[in-house]
């Protein structure tokens, strides 16, 4: 499959999903660099979303099934102001660990957006319209990054995405460090003796 296409089942949430919902504060204590503890970020990803808003339109859908660490939903569709709240990078990290490849929302809180891009965790994509009501959790979805388009395969409807713009260089490089190495701003890993 082309790198510029992301497909899978979608998990749908609404407007203003904040970082406390994405990963509740009490879980911020695990070491992100320990493989065992890192998995816990996946386990608790999206666990702060209120029950009735977990997996719209019906709600009550667990993002992570009991006893597992990864989600069956690689794509999240939300509304306005996704990722508002704290500066915690644990938020996009938790989604990445849970297996999320892309989030589609109409707007983002800037720190979440920045963290997703600079940390290379996932692709934060902006939809031109607020589209979460056109998706049901579990629908099959395809994102085409070349055509800037998201398609709900279940309903057959497509929606326009905004081009990545300036962020594309950093996303395509794989994050801020990779980008800075590419443009020669910091030493390569070999030179830095990492």
């Amino acid at each position, binding site marked *: 499959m082309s790198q510029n296409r992301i497909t899978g089942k979608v998990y749908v949430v609404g407007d203003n999903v904040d970082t406390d919902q994405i990963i509740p*504060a009490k879980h911020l204590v695990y070491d992100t660099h320990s493989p065992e503890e890192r998995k816990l970020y996946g386990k608790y990803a999206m666990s702060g979303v209120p029950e009735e808003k977990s997996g719209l339109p019906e709600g009550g859908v667990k993002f992570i099934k009991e006893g597992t660490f990864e989600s069956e939903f690689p794509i999240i569709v939300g509304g306005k102001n996704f990722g508002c709240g704290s500066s*915690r990078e644990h938020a996009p990290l938790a989604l990445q660990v849970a297996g999320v490849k892309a989030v589609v929302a109409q707007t983002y809180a800037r720190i979440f957006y920045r963290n997703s891009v600079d940390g290379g965790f996932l692709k934060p994509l902006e939809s031109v319209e607020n589209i979460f009501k056109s998706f049901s959790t579990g629908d099959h979805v395809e994102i085409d990054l070349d055509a800037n388009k998201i398609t709900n395969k279940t309903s057959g409807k497509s929606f326009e995405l905004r081009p990545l713009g300036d962020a594309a260089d950093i996303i395509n490089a794989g994050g801020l460090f990779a980008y800075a190495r590419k443009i020669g701003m910091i030493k390569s890993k070999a030179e830095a003796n990492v």
Partner: protein
Amino acid sequence: MGMTITEKILAGHSGKDRVVPGENVWIDVDVLMTHDVTGPGTISIFRKEFGKDARIWDRNKVVVIPDHYIFTEDQHAKRNVVFLRDFVKDQQIENFYDVGTPDYKGVCHVALPEEGYTRPGDVLFGTDSHTCTAGAFGEFATGIGNTDAAFILGTGKLWVKVPQTMRFVFNGKMPDYLMAKDLILRIIGDIGVDGASYAAMEFAGEAVYSLNIEERMTLCNMVIEAGGKNGIIAPDNETEKYVKARTNKPYKPVQNDPDAEFASELKYDTAKIVPLVAKPHSPENVEAAERLSDVKVDRVYIGSCTGGKLTDFKAAAKILNGRKTAVDTFIVPATTDVEKGLEKEKIGSKTLLQIFKEAGTRIGHASCGACLGGPEDTFGRINGEEICVSTTNRNFPGRMGSKKGQVYLASPLTAAATALTGKITDPRKFLA
């Protein structure tokens, strides 16, 4: 066309004569702050990317302030502070305010100004979203994640997109029943939680310049709750007096050019604003306190970077003086300086501490406390279905602990008035 304060600071720190909103620039960083929740992750990334033996770019420009999970027995939380300690020692960072020592300060955004790290015209980044608080000093200050902070640790630089500036002007005098919290809630209620996305929010007008520094910090603290990138207030004598008393480092105050261009300007007649409350579960659910007088509450919480400064406690004490609280009321000073201030500051012959004790409140130690929930044994944490009026800045589901809790945000005056009646109460009732 001239530039705004924010644009001028960013131009100055990127070595350019001018910048325009939307442009990406690499800027030099004056101060980087980190704390116990985000510090360990930042340090791990720094070591991974720059090498185990790498040195930070400038040990005098990094400030480490553990404040979030302090008075807890949670083992993971304690380990975070140990991690910070090791790094600080290894890198010979002197600006460290360690837990359990006389240096311990408490909430980073209040500690930074107290210790002289916030200076007009500077660039401050912090691994915490409320780093925007320092815009009150006329500097560019904003929150970043661990990757960005690790990048700064190694290089002293970061890229930023120059924000456009939205201007909010409060004309007229500040009535005694209003606080900065009411002004910022008015704005968030009007423009919404994403109303200032990616933008700088500048506060101006007679009422704003009449506020002391701590109140100005409350205004800038909550720009993030409107989606803003940074808050800014033009520095004046009040600012310089505060800063000069705390640091002898040089700095260059920056003002708007006379022909600076603002993306928008919203003007308020301050006298028409009433004490406000943000209902669960969003800071934009703003309603007049007097219209919620039938809402019963279980507890009141006065604390945090936005509502736990000495000015906040003076305001609360004014209302609580000689009266008894009707519901559990938690007092959590932001920093150890504020804590000491409670014992020194007086109304009449009584210290604030005496007033709070006589009113039957519970007094905690300087830290973030229950503002962000935290481990289950955190002082004042909502562990059930409590309804709480709080002077903090966020009321998202589960922010102060349990998802079943309900948080109403209000000024310290309104919170104290509510503590006396057990129902949401307009403070004018007690200020006659």
